[in-house]
């Protein structure tokens, strides 16, 4: 009896593959980690582009399929290929800007329903011909898809990095609008060019690269930036750490307080920062410039009636929801916003202009 039980257990240790009609043998499948979705010409059609993993001496390939739904794409790709495509390892999802402006919730829903796909799926919007770019890059760098994935993991705190979970959380919240990182194909390079802002599931605007760190300052409660460039004042601030507070009251509206600390890394202007009075003036200029930039960003969001930095959440109190049931979205464009920056700069005295 014991022997039979032991035998049964040994058989079960070999796995449950005998129960499962879908094959998961590694040599029989193609787990892909990158998917690029593009609007495919007419109407509702879309286009999937994936990087085929290589087995042994094969070359990596980039293949594309077109159709109405994502699953249809996969079916088409599978039947045209010797190994079955699996999305269990899918880590990155790129949208073309055209598709993002058309709306992406239908595709996100497909991703969410597929239990094989992790909610930690990184997402981004790409401007330009990404499929063609991938085709070139995969020849030059064999592991380009992996390299992209590592980039997302590495820069999680410095640029906009969003995954499926965070996007949908913002999408469904009545006090937030989703955003995604925006990349652009420039020649043979993929460049981070800021943040794509969404209203519902459609991209409506973007924060350009030079303004992106100011968006991050408002968006995240604590931020740290290796370099903040302010070309108007000819200054680069380094090792900047920020913390943000947002408060709301019925009379004054939204008050955003930013505590910014950092040092002057590069200075090309003509002020003598060794002189206390000029240094005071300089700090005041930087502060006003910061305030103006943040104010400008928020004004542009109010015009579009979007709230990508979840400012609306600060209107909630323990006892009261001031704008219940989507009211915030309607009222937000008219709410007065005050931006205050507390600036602490160090390392001023070291820099002296040439006499």
């Amino acid at each position, binding site marked *: 009896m014991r022997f039979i039980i032991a035998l049964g257990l040994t058989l079960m240790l070999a796995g*449950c593959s005998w129960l499962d009609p879908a094959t998961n043998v590694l040599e029989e499948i193609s787990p892909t980690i990158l998917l690029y979705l593009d609007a495919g010409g007419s109407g509702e059609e879309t286009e999937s582009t994936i990087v085929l993993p290589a087995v042994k001496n094969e070359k990596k390939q980039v293949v594309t399929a077109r159709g109405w739904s994502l699953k249809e794409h996969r079916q088409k790709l599978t039947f045209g290929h010797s190994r079955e495509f699996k999305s269990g390892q899918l880590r990155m999802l790129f949208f073309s800007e055209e598709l993002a402006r058309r709306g992406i919730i239908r595709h996100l829903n497909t991703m969410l329903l597929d239990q094989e796909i992790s*909610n930690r799926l990184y997402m981004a919007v790409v401007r330009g011909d990404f499929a063609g770019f991938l085709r070139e890059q995969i020849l030059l760098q064999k592991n380009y898809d992996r390299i992209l994935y590592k980039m997302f993991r590495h820069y999680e705190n410095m640029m906009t990095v969003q995954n499926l979970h965070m996007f949908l959380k913002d999408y*469904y919240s009545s006090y937030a609008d989703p955003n995604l990182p925006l990349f652009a194909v420039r020649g043979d390079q993929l460049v981070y060019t800021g943040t794509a802002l969404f209203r519902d599931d459609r991209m409506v605007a973007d924060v350009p690269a030079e303004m992106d760190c100011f968006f991050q300052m408002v968006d995240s409660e604590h931020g740290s930036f290796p370099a903040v460039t302010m070309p108007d004042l000819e200054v680069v601030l380094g090792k900047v750490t920020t913390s943000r507070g947002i408060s709301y009251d019925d009379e004054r509206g939204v008050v955003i307080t930013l505590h910014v600390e950092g040092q002057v890394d590069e200075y090309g202007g003509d002020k003598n920062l060794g002189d206390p009075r000029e240094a005071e003036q300089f700090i005041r200029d930087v502060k006003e410039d910061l305030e103006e930039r943040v104010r400008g960003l928020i004004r542009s969001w109010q015009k579009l009636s979007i709230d990508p930095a*979840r400012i609306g*959440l600060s209107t909630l109190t*323990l*006892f009261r*929801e001031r704008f219940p049931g989507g009211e915030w979205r309607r009222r937000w464009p008219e709410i007065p916003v005050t931006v205050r920056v507390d600036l602490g700069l160090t390392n001023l005295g070291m820099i002296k202009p040439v006499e």
Partner: protein
Amino acid sequence: MRTEERGASGGLWPASLGWLLVNRFQVALYVLFLPDVLIHPYMIWIILLVGVLSHFNLRILSKWLQTEEARLGYEGFVRVLGGRAVRLLAVPAAVVILLESSILTLDYLEVSHHVLFPSVSKLTFLPLLWLASVYLASQGMILTGRFVIIAFIGSLWIMTLFLQFLFPPVADYAMLLPLVPQKWDDNIPYILLTLWAAMAGPQYLAFTGSRFASTSGMFRWLALGNALSVLEYVVFFLAVTLAFGPEYMRKLDYPVVQLVRYIELPFFERLETIVVPFHMIVYIFLDAFFILILRDVLRIATGNAGQAKGFFGLAAVLWLVFIYLFGKYFWASETRHLFWIHFNSWLTGAAYALVPSFLALAALWRKRKRKRS
């Protein structure tokens, strides 16, 4: 107390086992399902409120467990209710046990099917679960009851995975506001019912009075188990609300399981492949317990209550066949699934409300009658 079991176990349950039993009975199904029902953050207060109600109900249960009749097992029930009534009540009891264990088990199988093996029929794993439960049940009630310790250790750690969602920077507490409702949800009766059902389960202990070595001081242990369940519900509910936000949470089936899928450890991802199977330990325990109770009920219903042997095989097979057919014909779609969980809430909620007070009152009544005569 049956001789085979006394020999096999070497001792009865200590009263302190009560808290683990209460806790695991309560949380099994609803720890996964509850956030589906609780949609607003302020409902955390309702969890606490129902927890307090359940606390008082456990007080009644412990009153019953301390009576002489409860300690006698079957004989005691005959003394309180009369032999005929006990036999009559055994038939609906068997149906209730079968229904409740079907709904619990199929719900778990549904989750594992949905998350882990979407291309395999959910009933494929029923025989495996059954084998484990039957093996455990064949060791007798005493050892099965003691297995709750393993079930507890094997599943409580899952809660610690969720703690990371409770603290900043991941958690934004503004999501929980307002914590005082401006206007109550229309669904409050249903929510109260489901929460009450989530605290249900300990009523089965009413039939195990003879297995405890001593039931004095029992209430403290039962209350501790109850408090732990409330804590678990609160932690899971808070973690899910903070991670998804109230609106997104509403769109998901089983947000707790979806949140497990989101957890990533530095050295391991896809934690659901570990967590969901580990949660099965609780179900092995529960199903073994149900099979044993079913065995006893079958003995009583057929008038063989005095016998120490028999009916175990019948109970085990009946259980398997019932659940298999139930799953095959009544559990096909998601809407059915929700209907049965709702049904289960009524069933077990009613049982939890009625069984302890009914038995305690019956015992009290008999005591009075005896005094008078």
